[in-house]
């Protein structure tokens, strides 16, 4: 039997107590919509899934629940948006650098 974690206050309390079942509930009930939100910014499904997974890894390991002041869902929504925007920015810089090195006239691949 899994207890009912629909109530934010109860869920937060259990997360503070490092209850892994509470975390499991949080992860399985929120990853789908967070994924859709991440795709809408990144346009890349695989990266979106990775960012959502990363967010939950951070959430557990860095005890991010302590930063939640409003609702859990608004917190997660803002967190994934920030992550996605940071990613697109860094990815842009990364691609630019990659282009800078690979733009040589003679691109010879070793056999």
């Amino acid at each position, binding site marked *: 039997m899994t207890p009912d974690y629909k109530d934010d206050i109860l869920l937060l309390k259990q997360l503070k107590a490092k209850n892994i079942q509470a975390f*499991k509930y949080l992860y399985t009930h929120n*990853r789908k919509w967070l994924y859709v939100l991440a795709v809408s910014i990144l346009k890349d499904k695989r990266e979106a899934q990775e960012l959502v997974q990363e967010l939950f*890894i951070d959430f557990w390991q860095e005890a991010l629940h302590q930063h939640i002041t409003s609702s859990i869902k608004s917190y997660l929504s803002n967190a994934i948006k920030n992550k996605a925007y940071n990613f697109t920015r860094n990815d842009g810089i990364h691609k630019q650098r990659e282009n800078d090195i690979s*733009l040589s006239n003679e691109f010879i691949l070793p*056999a």
Partner: protein
Amino acid sequence: MTQKYDIDYLFAGKVAGSLNNDELLEIGMLISQDEAIRLRWNEFIASLPENNELVPPKDWLDLTTMFQQSDKGCMHRTLLKKMVLVSILAVICITVYLYSPKKTTTNTIKLQLANGQVIDLNKVEDINTQLNNTNNTLSYKDGSTGMNSLTTPVGIDYKIRLNDGTEIWLNALTQLDFPFAFIGNTREITINGEAYLKIAKDENRPFIIHLPHNDIKVLGTEFNVNSYDSGIVKVSLVEGALNLLQGEKTISVKPGMEVIADGKITLHNFDERQVLGWRKGMYYFYDADLKEISKVLPRWFGITVVIDTPTIINRKFAGVVDKNQPIEVFIDNLKTVANIDCFYDKPQNTLHFK
């Protein structure tokens, strides 16, 4: 603005199909009654790649189990460190890649014994009575336990049967380190390149495969490993069960799943034809760029690939390379289907993409 629900949550949840009835009602009302929200909703839908048909993935990492297995939450930091290391390595590799001189290739399957002696498996007279090299397969009666090293050249794949009954198919340009006889409580080998493994069942002696950045531990299974790209290991499980060890962590893989370890770990379903096609001499590529194709062609045909127009490197292709056909067949197909200009300079053994 005080709102009961986060609007992005409602939008994303509606697309993901994860809203409850109250929330569905709320978003339905908002979209139909509030002009501003309706516009935002339309923008949101338009920003998704497949509009309404975005299906969330099913292959999520089992974080709960991962956290339970780790004593302290140190995984993320190790992962981060690895990612940084991988990106530094990538820069070094690209640099070496661009400036390394053309390697000369020899077409021999080489077996280097633990004592340093090198045997050319293409020359039958070199094979002594302990080794049997028929039908492109090596089996042996030797019982020594030192590590031998088997290397396949460009364009050649080869099969070996180990003394515990395990069978290993090596793709071109792959190195396998193995002992003639396994001693102790484990069976351990090392692979660098691509191989398909059929591990003989022995519950008392787990089989451990050392890869460039990871280890795999199995009891008896069938799977493919690919570490051709530096920094990336791909393991695709066909049958049985398998554990990938990344640092202190263990990732369990189920049949039909492929795990990609490139500093981070990703699990997804794989296309058997695409991953295992090499064993039949076929290389399937889907949505691949010229860079990826250029890596396979030298490995299979022993040719040099030169991309004369750097801008075409990111163009995407789908198709198949048949190793048993001459390279000209592939070039003809590519020219007609992909509308790309290339020519094969036979005396120089070089393929130019223009």
